[in-house]
């Protein structure tokens, strides 16, 4: 299908751009990971001599070999092999190992929350739009407010209120210390319990956007002739609302879903930090604080590729729900 092929080509280009940007940025910027690592060691009270620096330089392979083009080719080769280099924060652990451990947490937390808040927002938006002018409209300013609240601030306030003060929910971490990661109820239960607070934060602060978008589209769509026709056909209001109005109104939201995904991911990075959630966002902060360039780059790439992948999925979904896209435009 042409639509798909075009989309695939586009995402390949986008991925290539992201990969290349990732390669270029550090080469344009000052500072070196060795200096950063030394500084960090010093802070922790370690002994640093000129010789320490030398040995770290050997370890971290600072000072690239070959010209830029060769470096680029080498970089691409490494990427294809899944070799992001060695993290300086977690030396000598491979960056890919760290990512492997962090990724599932984020995927599950952010993925589930995003879908949840999308569904919730869409549903609420549908109903509010459908009953425009009713008391439900009062949800609109609330949603506006929620959409404008910074994720991390909401997270901290929730931590303060629900966690520290009321002691209802665990504050940090992905699971109880001591539980063994694996497919056992103790772990899964504990993981869910720990995910609750971050999940609430992400859902609360992203649901508003979906809700507003959907409401507006719903209101616009309700003016379409086919909705009127459906009503004239004597269909049940629920069917008119869902199959005729919402089904069409949701199309731009789905398209927007892809774009907003990047936004949600960004938001959850900060949220993970607040909750010490062992995901990719927190790993990014770690990398940033330690000037751990290999890790930072890898996290950026992984997030970007994940978002691109999700976008592709959404585009496929878009093709399913909007038959018009199936034909090439």
């Amino acid at each position, binding site marked *: 299908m*042409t639509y798909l092929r075009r989309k695939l080509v586009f995402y390949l280009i986008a991925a290539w751009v992201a990969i290349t940007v990732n390669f270029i940025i550090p080469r344009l910027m000052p500072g070196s990971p060795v200096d950063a690592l030394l500084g960090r060691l010093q802070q922790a009270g370690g002994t640093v001599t000129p010789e320490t620096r030398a040995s770290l330089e050997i370890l971290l392979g600072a000072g690239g070999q070959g010209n830029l083009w060769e470096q680029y080719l080498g970089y691409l080769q490494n990427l294809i092999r899944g070799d992001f280099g060695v993290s300086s924060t977690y030396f000598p652990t491979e960056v890919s190992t760290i990512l492997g451990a962090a990724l599932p947490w984020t995927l599950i937390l952010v993925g589930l929350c995003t879908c949840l808040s999308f569904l919730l927002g869409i549903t609420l938006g549908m109903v509010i739009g459908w009953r425009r002018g009713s008391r439900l409209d009062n949800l609109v300013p609330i949603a506006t407010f929620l959409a404008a609240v910074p994720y991390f601030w909401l997270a901290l306030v929730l931590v303060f209120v629900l966690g520290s003060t009321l002691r209802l929910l665990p504050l940090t971490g992905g699971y109880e210390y001591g539980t063994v990661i694996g497919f056992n109820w103790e772990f899964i239960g504990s993981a869910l319990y720990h995910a609750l607070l971050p999940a609430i934060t992400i859902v609360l602060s992203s649901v508003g956007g979906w809700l507003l978008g959907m409401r507006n589209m719903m209101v616009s769509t309700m003016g379409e002739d086919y909705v009127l026709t459906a009503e004239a056909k004597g269909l049940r209001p629920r069917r008119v609302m869902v199959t005729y109005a919402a089904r069409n109104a949701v199309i731009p939201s789905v398209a927007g879903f892809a774009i907003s995904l990047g936004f949600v991911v960004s938001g959850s990075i900060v949220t993970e930090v607040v909750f010490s959630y062992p995901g990719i966002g927190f790993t990014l902060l770690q990398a940033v604080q330690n000037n751990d360039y290999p890790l930072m780059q890898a996290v950026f790439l992984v997030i970007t590729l994940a978002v691109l992948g999700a976008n592709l999925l959404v585009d496929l979904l878009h093709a399913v729900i909007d038959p018009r896209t199936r*034909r*090439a*435009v």
Partner: protein
Amino acid sequence: MSVLQADALVKEYLVRDGRRRITLRAVDELSFELLSGTTVALVGESGSGKSTVARMLAQLVRPSSGAIRLDGESVSSRGRGLRRYREDVQLVFQDPFGSLNPFHTVDHHLRRPLRVHRRVESRADEDRQIEHLLERVNLTPPARVAGKRPHELSGGQRQRIAIARALAPAPRVLLADEPVSMLDVSIRLEILNLIDRLKEEDDLAVLYITHDLATARHFSRRILVMYRGELVESGESDEVILRPRHPYTRLLASAAPDPRRRLGTDPVSSGLSSGGPESPVTPSVDASKRSTSGATEGDASGGCRFRQRCPSAMAMCAQRPPILPVGDGHTARCWLYRDGAGF
């Protein structure tokens, strides 16, 4: 006197059809001329290429081949030559709601062409001209109208503004692309009468594009009939409408609503079978392609374009028919008249 001549104009569009990119001949070797003081009507079904012709003549679209001649000279498509050409050839659009910028006042719409074409010396002169233009299109008092924005005017008034704008550079050719099809019946006449009057006053050559055969007949001296990019019939108005030769023109003429039929023959059973792509006869043709398949490369070589719908189709129609004379100044592109049968 011939002012503007179209000489074998062709316009091809590359369109995407599913996977393939196909060349669509929206206009195929169209030739005709416009005479000053005369209205020529261009009729045809939707998608037959009428607007494309107008846009080529207005130099909004570059012809794929063929030439446009003003006073017998090939015209330039850029720079000062283009500007001079635009002074002479002006276009009125179909949609009076779309052809005026909602952001600007009537004054702006009329002042710009005066300035662009340097028709004025001073601001006072400009104001006078604007007033004069508005008066000519019966918008009085001009002062009241000039400050308004398009949404404050009715459709008919807007169309009159559009005409006034077209008149501002004092053109010799007016291209009117369905100037009244979006207006209420009751005000259509007013606009058409206005164009007619201006034609007389300024000795304009007018190309009147429409799908309404009745007004085409009433307001023009000659009628050109287009079908899928081709000129299939041309001739004196009454000849073409009352004695159509090409089977397509016949179909068109019989399909036009006519209250007089009510008084005469039974409208529904009279005339040709239309047999269009929508008809049950050929239901499997994907009619959505109809609008884009005006002339795909496939059937460009494939003879008469009307033959699938034509009741008189014959073997010969697989070859492209030439334009044949069928009467005094009356031609048709149809094999039926290959041996002077028209006379």
